[in-house]
């Protein structure tokens, strides 16, 4: 009984966290936020372009 209760709680917690992330597309919005700083980093890396 206790194990079932724990399982249900875990499942509800999982849904409570993931459903809003899914529905409001928060994963995509977060990646969009880090795009500019990442591009800045790539642009500032030293490169050896000699072939």
């Amino acid at each position: 009984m206790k194990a079932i209760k724990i399982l249900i709680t875990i499942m509800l917690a999982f849904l409570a966290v993931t459903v809003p992330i899914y529905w409001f597309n928060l994963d995509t919005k977060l990646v969009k936020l880090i795009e500019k700083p990442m591009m800045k980093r790539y642009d500032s890396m030293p490169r050896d372009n000699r072939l």
Partner: protein
Amino acid sequence: MKKKKGAADNLKNKTAIQKHREWRGGLDTAYDYMQWCRLWGILIKWAASHPVQNVRAVFRYRWMFSYLTVPSFFDRLCEGQRGAGLRGARNNLNYLASDVTKTLTTIFSADMHLHPDSKKAEELNKRIICVDELLPNLLGKGFPDCKMILFQEYPMYLPSLINQHSPVHYIEQSELYGLPADVCPLPSFEAGLAIEDDFPKIGCCMLTSNMPCDGSIMTTMLQERRIGLPSQVLNVPLRWKEDEVQDYAVEEIRSAIAFLEEHTGQKFDWDAFKEGCEIWNRQNECKFEKWDMNRTDIPPHTGSSAWLYRIFEHQAVAGEPRALRNDLKVNRILRKQVAAGKCPKTIRHRAVLWNTPCNNYANFNNWLLNCWGIESVCEMIDIHGTDLIDTGSHESMLRGLADHYQTSTMRAHTKGGSEVMLDSLWEKYEEYNADMIIMFDQISCKGVGAINGLFEEGAMKRGIPMVRVRQDLMDPTSITRREMRNDVNIFMQSVMKEEPVDASLVEFDDDESW
């Protein structure tokens, strides 16, 4: 009266990021959510397996940023999908994600950029064979103790589909380096990666090729200078319909096998290769069944997720048991819907899409269907490597493999003469009971550009409505997604005199979208 909301009303201006994920009805939304969870499970498993190495890879390689946008990419490829179409697409895409993450782990574990002086990485590299991404890696099944990796697939081809802006920086680098600006963006992107030293440093040897065209041959030279591995060219005949070239094609493969044996120290395993060919034949049979279903009034397996998966399967996972299991599962799902006679989408036109599709607008098919009700029942890029391999003898398997190469992605149609590029179009039009043609006018694919007039003449003679859509494969700075849509909009409004299925999708700004 309140204006009915369309799909584009849910997109943020310019970035086209969905304000919220799509409502597809209770069951389909729940299914989509579960598959999204599955995708994140795959990504988290990958990230957690080698956390330090993967973080370093993301910071080291510009193209790795594109992989962070994969959930959004999959959403775009599933836009508007319902029922079996959605289920098939999500299963294909998640299989693709699980295979790609596994390969990325192998690549980064061996990458001498990330692990300079590492003995472990050096050892791993002794078992990695790099091949040009346009050579399907079925041959690798004959070296079961090695891993054959499509060298440009992971830094170039997949990122160009996932994020339309990913090629731009690399194309600029190749132009700044002094290379001509009018070549196809695919080889330019590859050259830019070599110039920027952004290919992972992996492998013990490399098989290059003359595939698919002259642009790619040129860029191989630059890549070789950067990669510095022992290499051999596996030449694939152009006029592949001609019998006389087949002995030469087989000889080329024999010579490639000898080269690989020499550099890996492994003997070619014919039994393992035969097993790979048999699995590939079954994968192909699954594809034939999908095409049969698409010839019905309820085409269930269409669009970008179908052709993208087909290319990946043909090039990267031919002969892979897990890929076959995915195919069997997807076919079961599709069969059920066709048997039930359900068609959960608005189809006004059945179109054949011809010529190379546009990587920087991979979800163009979804837009065609959602905006104008144009269903892509048949696509040129989907039809390659369709001959079954006779596994009766070593010789017959090599002949089958030679054919598999010659009818590979882009090669099957863009090379090989007018009967495969031109005549085949009219045959497919009849076969799929189509009522219009979408002709991609890939402005830098000169071989096909030369026969554009013949397509037009042929369509006019047969009274077939044909719309030409300009695109530049993977360079959104020459032709934008909006311009591609506009070519269709003008045709549908002025020639076909039709109203859109979803008016919000006719004109919207997604120039900054991935």
